[in-house]
């Protein structure tokens, strides 16, 4: 490929200049890659977590600024029992800490009563969920997904196994009594993570809320937030009933102290924020890509002028307008393509660092790579048109005479 060779050597002949020219493209592409990778990773992780945990759950909040009343665990349970269209209602306490068995992982430990199994839709694959009496006695038992078990125990046969959970410096040994079914993809992903030693995921564990409050001394005896689990399609109805019942129990009717918070709307908010962030970064990226493109056009114009004599020689030897045009277009496209690839590498480097801090796996999609190749070459082609056209249209005699 003659054009490739000539373009490549001309870029290498001016390394420093080429690199400076590529800078805009590098910055633009690396920010596109970073935001895409972080966005994808975050959507995947957080979105997945919320989806998984809260698919049908509706959270009812009691506003601590408007009242100092609260519900007891028994009252929350009663609310669930009094709504025929609900599977139940449960306090929901979250403890973030470490889980340690074969592997050591970050863990998100969710405490609730026995109805919290309805916060997700998958079936139990093995063992049992914790029971009313487990809750009553604050038993150190837990339920997790099969993929979480793979990550923690390197085994799907984890019922009966124990792990040490540490929250706020308190460590307790918890026995796994049941496993929730995971789909094949997450199971194979989990195995991959285990064999690669990439254990940055959170695992989710359900335990009796009493274990968290009594065993780990987490606040939550006084319940100001709980979740009801409606039957499919009954979300709004159940939420409203739960809100009424809570207001009645607390004697807070009409005071707007009890409010409904659905996870669907939380997810929506999260997506909205992420989309705005994506838009802002995309805008910055677009600007730097345009600026970078103009830089490429500029440097290519300079290069064409510097090489006027070469162009004259090529034309004298029989180069057609088209082949000069292609030569320079090729050069500017190669310039931006290299810039794009460097930007991609920088972007993934950045993503890698950010994800280490933020505890989620970066997600590199093949479609993003294709996008980068496409965008960067198109910029080179587009901004190369003007200088390449100038080169191609030179009169051979004037170009040869140029000093």
């Amino acid at each position: 490929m003659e054009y490739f060779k000539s373009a490549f050597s001309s870029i290498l002949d001016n390394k420093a200049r080429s690199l400076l020219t590529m800078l805009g493209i590098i910055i633009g592409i690396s920010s596109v890659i970073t935001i895409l990778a972080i966005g994808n990773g975050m959507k995947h992780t957080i979105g997945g977590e919320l989806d998984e945990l809260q698919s049908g759950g509706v959270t009812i909040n009691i506003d601590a600024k408007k009242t100092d009343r609260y519900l007891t665990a028994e009252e929350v349970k009663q609310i669930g029992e009094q709504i025929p269209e609900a599977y139940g209602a449960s306090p929901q306490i979250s403890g973030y800490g470490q889980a340690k068995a074969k592997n050591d992982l970050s863990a998100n430990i969710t405490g609730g009563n026995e109805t919290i199994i309805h916060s997700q839709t998958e079936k139990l694959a093995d063992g049992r969920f914790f029971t009313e009496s487990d809750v009553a006695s604050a038993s150190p038992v837990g339920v997790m997904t099969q993929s979480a078990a793979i990550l923690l125990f390197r085994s799907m046969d984890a019922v009966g196994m124990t792990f040490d959970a540490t929250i706020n410096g308190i460590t307790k040994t918890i026995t796994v009594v049941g496993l929730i079914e995971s789909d094949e993809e997450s199971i194979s992903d989990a195995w991959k993570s285990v064999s690669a030693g990439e254990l940055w995921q959170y695992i989710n564990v359900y335990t009796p809320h009493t274990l968290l409050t009594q065993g780990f001394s987490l606040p939550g005896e006084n319940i100001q937030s709980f979740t009801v689990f409606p039957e499919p399609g009954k979300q709004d109805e159940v939420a409203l009933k739960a809100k009424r019942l809570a207001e009645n129990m607390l004697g807070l009717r009409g005071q707007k102290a009890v409010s409904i918070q659905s996870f669907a709307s939380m997810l929506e908010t999260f997506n909205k924020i992420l989309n705005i962030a994506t838009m802002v970064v995309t805008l910055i990226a677009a600007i730097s890509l345009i600026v970078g493109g103009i830089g490429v056009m500029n440097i290519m114009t300079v290069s064409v002028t510097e090489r006027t004599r070469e162009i004259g020689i090529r034309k004298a030897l029989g180069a057609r307008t088209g082949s000069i045009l292609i030569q320079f277009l090729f050069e500017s496209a190669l310039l931006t393509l290299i810039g794009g690839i460097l930007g991609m590498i920088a972007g993934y480097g950045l993503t890698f660092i950010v994800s280490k801090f933020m505890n989620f796996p970066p997600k590199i999609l093949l479609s993003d790579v294709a996008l980068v190749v496409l965008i960067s070459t198109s910029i080179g082609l587009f901004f190369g048109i003007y200088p390449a056209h100038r080169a191609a249209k030179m009169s051979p005699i004037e170009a040869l005479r140029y000093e």
Partner: protein
Amino acid sequence: MSKLVEIINVSKIYNPGENEVRALDGVSLSIDKGEFVAIIGQSGSGKSTLMNILGCLDTPTAGIYRLHGMDVSHMSDNEQSDVRNMEIGFIFQGFNLIQSLTALENVELPLTYRGVAKKERLKLSKNALSRVGLANRMDHKPQEMSGGQQQRVAIARAIAQAPPILLADEPTGNLDSGSSREIIEIIKRLHSEGRTVILITHDPGIAAQAKRIITISDGKIKSDVINTAQEG
């Protein structure tokens, strides 16, 4: 049979209007296949202008230029590119090699534009370089070579594709007398092998080596004589 080169009443006028320059003024001449013609004249007489028109690098303001009986003075840019590529080998005073390419790559260039495949191209180019005595300098860049060597690369480039016409504009203008003699010898040899050579010079000594000498002055042909010394 039509002439190889035939120009009829060709004029080239620069800056038409107030201070116009008639670089060529109604020049007519024809050259047959296999001739060795020297065009001689003082500086500014219009030699290079004539050469540019003969080489299809420039178009005449008025008049007709026929190459192989084909009117090339009104062709499109790309058609002219093709004519230059197929019909003409240029040898310039300033060598006009591309500095970033090796000797071999410079010689390959016109063959690339002709669409000759890589293998054939390499064979023809190496062959041409050997014929000018540079078989051992193929991978050198122009800066690494003497003026005489650079001009020989340029000659190799001009002959690699065996064009019918060799156009040389002051090919020895930038060379010392030793290298000049070498270059003229190579050009004479190429002529004796059957190529048509048009050599532009202001040096009567070099012109005397040709078989036909055309003298121009102020854009007009002053004389067009057979060089009897060389006919013998």
